[in-house]
C-alpha cells in the first residue's frame, strides 16, 4: 500500500521544506543586509559627494554679457552700435552626439558648411563649457520652427544676443577698426590682467582701431546669474543676480560729415587725409582709402573675402594715415625755411639766382630744380610760393644734417605722435648716427641735399605731417593728436574727458612764423603752386604742395606722367591750414600715384576746408541719420 510510504515521505518532505525555507529566509536577510550597506554608503558616507552633484545638477551659473559701448562722432552720429538678433547655440558638453544633432538641426534651420566650419573653430577655441553659436541671425520662421521641436534637442537653445554693427561699412573702417572672437593669446593676456571674469560669456574683443585702443572702456563687465534649472536646462528660478556693467560710450573728436566729404573727394584715388584742430589736437577727419567693411571681421571673415582683401593691389587693410610711410617731398619746405631762419642761415630778404640746378662745390653732379630753367631771383617767400628746389638745396647744404635733424625732430618728424590708436609707425628722420647704424656708411653732403627737398632718406606718415602742420599753424604750440573727445558712462551718467594740456611749446620766433605762414598763403594765391585750388576761397588758407617720387629718375632723365604706369606715378601731397590768421583746422592730404600735389591733393583739401569753414555740404549730400542721443541699445 502507498499509505505508509506517503506518510513517511510527507514528514520528510516537510522537514526538507522547512530547511530549505530557512535557507531562503537567511538568503533574503543577506540581500537586505546588502541593500542596507549600500544605502549607508550612499546616504551616510558619500552624502556630501552626492549633495554636491545634486547641487551641480540644480544650479547653473549663467554669465550675462555686458552691452558694448557705442562709438559716436563729435555730433552724436553712431559709428558702431549693437543690435539684437537670435542665434542658435549648442552647449557641446550637454550634447551626446554633436554631429548627429547638427544634422538634425539642419533640417529645421539652414546650416551651411561654412557655419559648421565656424562652429568647429569655435569648439577648438572655446575655453569654457559655454554655449557656442552654430547659426547667427536666425529668421523669425527659423526661430518658430526650432522652438516647436525644442524638446528634441537638449543642450541646444535659441538665444537673443547683441551683435556689433558698423553702419557706415567702409567709411570709418580704419578709424573704428572692428571686434572679433577672442583668440587664445588674447585670452591669456586677459587672464594675466585678471580681466577674464569680465569677459565671461562675451567672446568678443576689439582687434584694431578705436575698438582695440579703448577696449577697456567699451567692453564693460560681465554679470553673473545663478539660476536653478531643471533637467531640460530650463530656468526655474533665479537664485542670485549680479547685473553686468555696460561698456562706456565713446564720443570721438571725428566730424563724420567732414570725414564723409573727405572720403568722397578722393574719388577713386588711394590715399590718406588727416585733419587736426591745431588749437587742441582733436582729430577731425582720419581717412585712409580704400577702406574695407569691418562687419566682415566680427564673426571671422570667410576665406573668399579675406583673400580678396589681402591680395588686392590696393591694400585696403593698410591704414595709410597711421602706418603709411612716404617721402614728404616739398611739403617740408616751410619747415626747412623756418630752420633756415632759426639757425640764421637765411634772412627774409636774402635771395638767390636760380639757374634751374644746384651743384656742390667741386662736384659735377647737378641737383635739378623741378623747373628746368629755374625760377629767376628767389627769396624765402618766393621759394615757398613757387616751391623752388634750388633754394633748398643750398639751404640744406648750409644747415647740415645735424641742424635739420634737431629742428625737424622738434616738430615730431621721425617720432610717433602718440595718437590714441595702436600700430602707429614712427616714419624716419635720418641723422649721421642713423646712417652709420642702418647702412654702416658715413653721411655724405649729397644725402643732406636730398633731405632738403624731402626726397632723401626721410619718411613721414600722413598723421605725422598733419601733426607738424598743426604745430606750425598753432605758432609752435603742440597738442597731442587724439581721437577721443569724451567717455560717457551709461550707468552712472558720468562724463569723462581726456586731458588736453599743451604737449610742448617750440617757442619759435613769431616773425619767422608770420613770414613762413604768409608764404604758405601765397601758395594758394595767383602765382603759387596751388593757385587753382585757392581760386574763389572766401577765407585765406595756407598750404604747401608736395610730390613724393615713387621711382628714381636717372641723371638727365625726365619724368613724363603719361608715360609712367599708374602704379609708379608720383604720390601727391598737400598740407594746409585755415583760416591763415587764426587756424581752426590743419591737415595733410596724400594721394597715392596722384601725380603733382597741386592737381589732385590740393583740390581735396579745398573741399574739406570749404565744408569745415563754410559748412557747404557737398552736392550729393549723404543721407546720414543722426543718432538719438547716446542710447545704449
Amino acid at each position, binding site marked *: 500500500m502507498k499509505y505508509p510510504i506517503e506518510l513517511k515521505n510527507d514528514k520528510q518532505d516537510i522537514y526538507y521544506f522547512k530547511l530549505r525555507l530557512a535557507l531562503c529566509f537567511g538568503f533574503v536577510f543577506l540581500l537586505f543586509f546588502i541593500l542596507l550597506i549600500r544605502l549607508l554608503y550612499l546616504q551616510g558616507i558619500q552624502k556630501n559627494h*552626492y549633495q554636491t*552633484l545634486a547641487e551641480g545638477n540644480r544650479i547653473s551659473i549663467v554669465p550675462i554679457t555686458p552691452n558694448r559701448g557705442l562709438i559716436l562722432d563729435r555730433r552724436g552720429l553712431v559709428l558702431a552700435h549693437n543690435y539684437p538678433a537670435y542665434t542658435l547655440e549648442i552647449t557641446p558638453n550637454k550634447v551626446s552626439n554633436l554631429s548627429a544633432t547638427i544634422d538634425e538641426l539642419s533640417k529645421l534651420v539652414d546650416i551651411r558648411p561654412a557655419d559648421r566650419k565656424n562652429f568647429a573653430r569655435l569648439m577648438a577655441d572655446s575655453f569654457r563649457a559655454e554655449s557656442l553659436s552654430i547659426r547667427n541671425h536666425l529668421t523669425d520662421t527659423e526661430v518658430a520652427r526650432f522652438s516647436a521641436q525644442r524638446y528634441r534637442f537638449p543642450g541646444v537653445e535659441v538665444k537673443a544676443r547683441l551683435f556689433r554693427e558698423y553702419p557706415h561699412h567702409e567709411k570709418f573702417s580704419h578709424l573704428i577698426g572692428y571686434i572679433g572672437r577672442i583668440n587664445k593669446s588674447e585670452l591669456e593676456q586677459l587672464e594675466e590682467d585678471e580681466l577674464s571674469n569680465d569677459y565671461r560669456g562675451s567672446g568678443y574683443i576689439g582687434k584694431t582701431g578705436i575698438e582695440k585702443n579703448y577696449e577697456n572702456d567699451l567692453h564693460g563687465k560681465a554679470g553673473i546669474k545663478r539660476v536653478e534649472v531643471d533637467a531640460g536646462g530650463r530656468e526655474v528660478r533665479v537664485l542670485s543676480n549680479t547685473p553686468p556693467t555696460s561698456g562706456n560710450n565713446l564720443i570721438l573728436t571725428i566730424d563724420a560729415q567732414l570725414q564723409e566729404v573727405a572720403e568722397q573727394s578722393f574719388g577713386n584715388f588711394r590715399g590718406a587725409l588727416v585733419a587736426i584742430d591745431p588749437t587742441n589736437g582733436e582729430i577731425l577727419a582720419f581717412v585712409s582709402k580704400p577702406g574695407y567693411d569691418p562687419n566682415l571681421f566680427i564673426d571671422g571673415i570667410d576665406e573668399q573675402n579675406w583673400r580678396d582683401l589681402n591680395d588686392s593691389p590696393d591694400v585696403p587693410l593698410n591704414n595709410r594715415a597711421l602706418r603709411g610711410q612716404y617721402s614728404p617731398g616739398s611739403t617740408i619746405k616751410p619747415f626747412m625755411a623756418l630752420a633756415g631762419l632759426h639757425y640764421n642761415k637765411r634772412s627774409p630778404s636774402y635771395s638767390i639766382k636760380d639757374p634751374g640746378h644746384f651743384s656742390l662745390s667741386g662736384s659735377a653732379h647737378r641737383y635739378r630744380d623741378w623747373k628746368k630753367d629755374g625760377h629767376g631771383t628767389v627769396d624765402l617767400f618766393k621759394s615757398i610760393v613757387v616751391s623752388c628746389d634750388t633754394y633748398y638745396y643750398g639751404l640744406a647744404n648750409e644747415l647740415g644734417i645735424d641742424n635739420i635733424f634737431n629742428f625737424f625732430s622738434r616738430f615730431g618728424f621721425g617720432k610717433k605722435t602718440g595718437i590714441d590708436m595702436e600700430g602707429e609707425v614712427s616714419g624716419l628722420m635720418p641723422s649721421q648716427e642713423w646712417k652709420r647704424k642702418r647702412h654702416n656708411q658715413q653721411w655724405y653732403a649729397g644725402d643732406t641735399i636730398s633731405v632738403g627737398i624731402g626726397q632723401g632718406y626721410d619718411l613721414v606718415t600722413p598723421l605725422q605731417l598733419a601733426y607738424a602742420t598743426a604745430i606750425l599753424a598753432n605758432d609752435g604750440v603742440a597738442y597731442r593728436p587724439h581721437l577721443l573727445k569724451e567717455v560717457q558712462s551709461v550707468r552712472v551718467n558720468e562724463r569723462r574727458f581726456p586731458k588736453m594740456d599743451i604737449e610742448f611749446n617750440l617757442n619759435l620766433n613769431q616773425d619767422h612764423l608770420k613770414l613762413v605762414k604768409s608764404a604758405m598763403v601765397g601758395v594758394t594765391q595767383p602765382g603759387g603752386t596751388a593757385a587753382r585750388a585757392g581760386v574763389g576761397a572766401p577765407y585765406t588758407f595756407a598750404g604747401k604742395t608736395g610730390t613724393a617720387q615713387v621711382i628714381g629718375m636717372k641723371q638727365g632723365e625726365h619724368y613724363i606722367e603719361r608715360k609712367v604706369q599708374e602704379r609708379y606715378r608720383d604720390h601727391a601731397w598737400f598740407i594746409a591750414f585755415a583760416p591763415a590768421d587764426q587756424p581752426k583746422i590743419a591737415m595733410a592730404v596724400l594721394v597715392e600715384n596722384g601725380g603733382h600735389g597741386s592737381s589732385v591733393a590740393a583740390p581735396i583739401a579745398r573741399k574739406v576746408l570749404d565744408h569745415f569753414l563754410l559748412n557747404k555740404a557737398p552736392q550729393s549730400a549723404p543721407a546720414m541719420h543722426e543718432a538719438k542721443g547716446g542710447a545704449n541699445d
Partner: protein
Amino acid sequence: MIRQRLWQRFIAHLDPTLLASLGILLLISLVVLYSASDGNWYRVLTHMTNILVACTALWVGANTPLHYLMRVAVPIYLLGLALLIAVGFFGEIANGARRWLNVGVTTIQPAELMRIAVPLMMAWYFEKCQVTLTLKNYCFAALLLLLPVTLIARQPDLGTAIMIAASGLYVLFLAGISWRIMLAIFVTFMASLPLVWSTLHDYQRHRIMMLIDPSQDALGRGYHTIQSTIAIGSGGIFGKGYLNGTQTHLDFLPERTTDFIFAVYSEEFGLIGNLVLLSLYLFVISRSFIITTHASTYFTRLMAGSITLTFCTYIFVNIGMVSGILPVVGVPLPLISYGGTSMVILLLCFGILMGIHKNKRIVQT
C-alpha cells in the same frame, strides 16, 4: 447581530497583522506618489482606485477555496500562454517593446498574469505528482516555466521574464529538487551565458554594461542610474524633506512614479526613511514566511513560498537597480510603485497567502 456576523464572515479570511503592515506601505506609496508626480492629484486618485481594485483582488484571493484555486490553475496558465502568444502577434508596440494587448475596454499586460499563473501551475503540477516525483517531473515543470519566460523575454521584457523565472525556480527549489540537479542547472546556466548574451537585445546588453561603468554614457543609458544614485545619496541621513527633493522636482529623475520611485522616497526621507521602509518590508516578509511554514499541503507550501520569495526578489532587484548595484531592468518596487496591473496581482497574491493561512487547519483535518 446579523450585520456583525456578516462583517466577521467578511473579514474571516484576512490576516490582520499582514493587512495592517500592507496598509501602512500602501499609505506610504500614496504619500510618495503625490511628491513624485509633482502634486498631480489625478495620478494620486488613479493610484487610489488601483489600490481599491487591488484590495478587492486581495479579498477575492483570500476567500477563494484552495481546491478551487487548484482547479483554475491549468485554465489560467493556458489562458495566459494564449494571451502571450496573441501579444506576440497583435500586441501594441510601445517604447520598442510589444507588451500590451488591447482588449477593447483596456490594454492589459499578459505577462503580469503569468506572474501568478506560473507558480500556480507549477505548484498544482507538483501537488498532482507528489507521490512519484522523478527527474522527469522536474523537467516537465521546468518546461512549464521556460515556455512563458521565453515568450516574455522575446517581447522584450527582461525584467518581468527574470522575475517570473525566479518565481518558478523558487517552486522548483522548494519542491525539493535535489542539490545535484540544481548544481547541474547552475553549471549549465553559467556555461550558456555567452549564448544568452548573444540573444539579448542591444539595449539589454547596454544596461548590463552600464552597471559596470555608468559614467561612460552619462547622458544616455547610464543617465537613469547616475541620477537615481545622486538622488539617494544627496538625501543624506534625514532627507531633504517632503516635496523638497531637487532631483525629483527638477525632472532629473526618470520614471520617478514607477520603477524609480524609491529614489524619490530616499531623497526626501533620507536614510531614516529607508530604515523604516526596509523594516516594514522585512516585517511583511517575516509574516509571510511564518504563513508559509504553517501551510498544510504541498500545493499551498509551494504557492506561499514562491509568493514570499518573489516579493523579496522584487524589493531587492528594484532597490538594487535604483541604488546602482544591479542593472536597470523594468521591475517596480512592490506596494510603492505606481501601476495598476502589478498592484492587483501583488495583492491577489497576498490574498492567496492569507487564504492559505486561514485554511491551514481546515485542510489538515
